[in-house]
């Protein structure tokens, strides 16, 4: 694999940021990846997308397959450790890298050190944009009212709560309505939603009822897994509420159809 030279970014004095898109964004919604890139570039970063990235290993880890999880953690570390920062548009995958890699590799001093080094330079997208480099961007108006869903790993493993709200409030005249159950799990849980679909659906319905109660026209979140779960159930229930990743709003890339929508927004 081709090692990128670090001298380049010292010369430009721009932080060199690697985007870990996550396997879901890669397959399902590349638009989120491009929105993240746009925001990072607007924040003055030099952005790379390491091409040997696949998955953070969380499905294996949460299924009890520790060996595969360790292999994938090492693969990720080797691919990403050369950059100044790693930015992930997902609290869940970010949590895996920051919170769980060092634990997974705790009994191997060499890899533990590398995992900890990666932990320290990995950020969830909104965290990075609030705490590290603010995007110098004129946030466009978003005319629909929004509510924010706090994804579990982002909230509880990474402490992401104020950052997305702080960023959303930079959007001119944004109407952000908080749900009472914003911090309650949406029922996704990775393989949980297909292993226990009935319970998962009950949880998603509770989440959706809370969203409906806010009266918001759009649900915003920072994790595609949650957003697909919510959007898929919203559509099945025939509810006309848009679902989008926060990066799409911030980067003014809401011309692409919302999650689970056909080409014409609201259609289908």
């Amino acid at each position, binding site marked *: 694999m081709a090692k990128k030279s670090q001298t380049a970014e010292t010369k430009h004095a721009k932080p060199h940021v690697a985007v870990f*898109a996550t396997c879901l*964004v*890669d*397959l*399902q*919604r*590349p638009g989120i*990846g*491009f929105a993240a*890139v746009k925001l990072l570039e607007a924040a003055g970063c030099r952005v790379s*997308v390491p*091409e*040997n990235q*696949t*998955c953070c*290993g969380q499905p*294996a*880890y*949460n*299924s*009890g*397959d*520790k060996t*595969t999880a360790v*292999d*994938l953690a090492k*693969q990720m570390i080797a691919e990403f450790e050369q950059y100044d920062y790693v930015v992930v548009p997902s609290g869940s995958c970010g949590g895996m890298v920051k919170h769980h890699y060092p634990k997974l590799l705790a009994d191997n001093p060499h890899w533990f050190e590398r995992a900890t080094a990666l932990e320290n330079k990995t950020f969830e997208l909104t965290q990075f944009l609030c705490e590290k480099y603010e995007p110098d961007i004129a946030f466009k108006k978003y005319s629909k009212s929004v509510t924010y869903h706090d994804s*579990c*790993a982002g909230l*509880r493993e990474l402490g992401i709560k104020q950052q997305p709200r702080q960023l959303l409030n930079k959007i001119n005249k944004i109407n952000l309505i908080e749900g009472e159950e914003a911090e*309650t*799990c949406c029922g996704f849980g*990775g393989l*949980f*939603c*297909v292993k*226990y*679909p*009935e*319970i998962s*659906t*009950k*949880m*998603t319905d*509770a989440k959706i009822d809370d969203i409906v109660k806010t009266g918001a026209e759009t649900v915003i979140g920072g994790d595609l897994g949650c957003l*697909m*779960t919510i*959007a*898929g*159930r919203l*559509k*099945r229930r025939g509810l006309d509420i848009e679902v989008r990743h926060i990066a799409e709003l911030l980067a003014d890339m809401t011309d*692409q*159809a919302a*999650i*689970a*929508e*056909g*080409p014409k927004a609201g259609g*289908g």
Partner: protein
Amino acid sequence: MQSTSKQFPENAHEALQDEGLQQALQKLSTGFPLKRLQAAKRLPEFEALRDQARNIKNHVLENLDYYLEQFEDKVTKSGGHVHWCRNSDEARQTILDICQKANAKTVTKSKSMIGEEIAINDFLETNGVTPIETDLGEYIIQLRHEPPSHIIAPAIHLSKQQVAETFLKQHVNLDPDRDLDQPRQLLEEAREQLRQKFLQADVGLTGANMLVAETGSNVLVTNEGNADLTYGVPKVHIVVASLEKIVPTLEDATTVLRVLARSATGQEMSVYTTFCTGPKRPEDTDGPEQYHVVLLDNGRTDLIATEFQEMLRCIRCGACLNHCPVYKAVGGHAYGWVYSGPMGAVLIPGLIGMDEASHLPNASTLCGRCESICPMRIPLPKMLRDWRTRNYQQGKTGIKSRYAMAAWAFMAKRPKLYHGVMGIISSVLSKLGKKYGRFKSLPAAGAWCESRDLPAPQGGTFIQQWQTRRKQDREQSL
């Protein structure tokens, strides 16, 4: 108690269809968490107390033998007896022997999860001793022959109408046309019934919220005062408790008490907190003549020095149940054994085995809300995952999941192959789903599509598109 944990999905299905249960769960999971939050906010040192409580129990678990022996010594010196029981059979037999020696006909009982764990009621009943539950919730479910569905709110699954029906059916000596519409009326009737039982009982059987090593005392916490009438009136007091309930000192016990009620119900203190030490002394005006502590292991020492040791810090406050979205969806009975919620999903496999309880650690999104509110800071999600890991390592994960995981892992470890395959999937699915942006059904996504549409991919993976874009940029700049 016979477990039905193996049928967790079926149990859950039933629970999800039960409208009365769903209403009760809705109330529980909004009421208790809010009260806990307010109680925690009123106490500036609440978070520090959680750390302290955790440290106390960690210290105990590292020195369990020492504190247990100290406890036994103190109990003996105060004139009581400690009975060491390895399992449910030994504990049941010990309790029955004490009852029979006392010629007991009835035993009043204050709420004890260990009592449920060893199924003491059925055992006493078949041996001619009548057990009477005196906690209101426990009394109701005893009349209905049901297990508790919540550690601290055992009849939470029932509506007041159901309780009224039960009373009308069971209290046959009362006017069948009496009015039982109001909760107060139900309470008065239960109180009336129980008052006589308290006075008649030969033995009082209680659990213990804690055992204090330095004094040989047991701590009892209730909101109804029933524990005090249970242990204080009869001639014999039997405490049944699992051995990890021990704390070194009275000071430590009060630290734990400060987080217990706040976490459980949002109360500063429970209404009644009692420390019982030994039998009645000559100068005492009342109290039991005999004091027995039945100390139960039942698989707990097997958890020590394993990845599950921290579970033994649990003080049974029920906060993790109250905050768990899975518990809120299916209630306690679905878990199929004595305990439920996150603490149950970790503890049950440890006590009755993963073969029986393998669903429980899997039926969680690992959302982490339980750990965030646990007064003893037990890393419940980590331990749920640890059970999954153990299962996987022992080859007990289902063949289908195993193959699917292996195939996926094979690809994920080979980025070029992975991106090729994802490129194909994304292009096929995006074409198929282009019109509506989603699928109502898809062969490989059956479980997802049971209740949800599957969003269609936008088309072209991110990595592929990024590479194309970079190539174009390079060509342009040449």
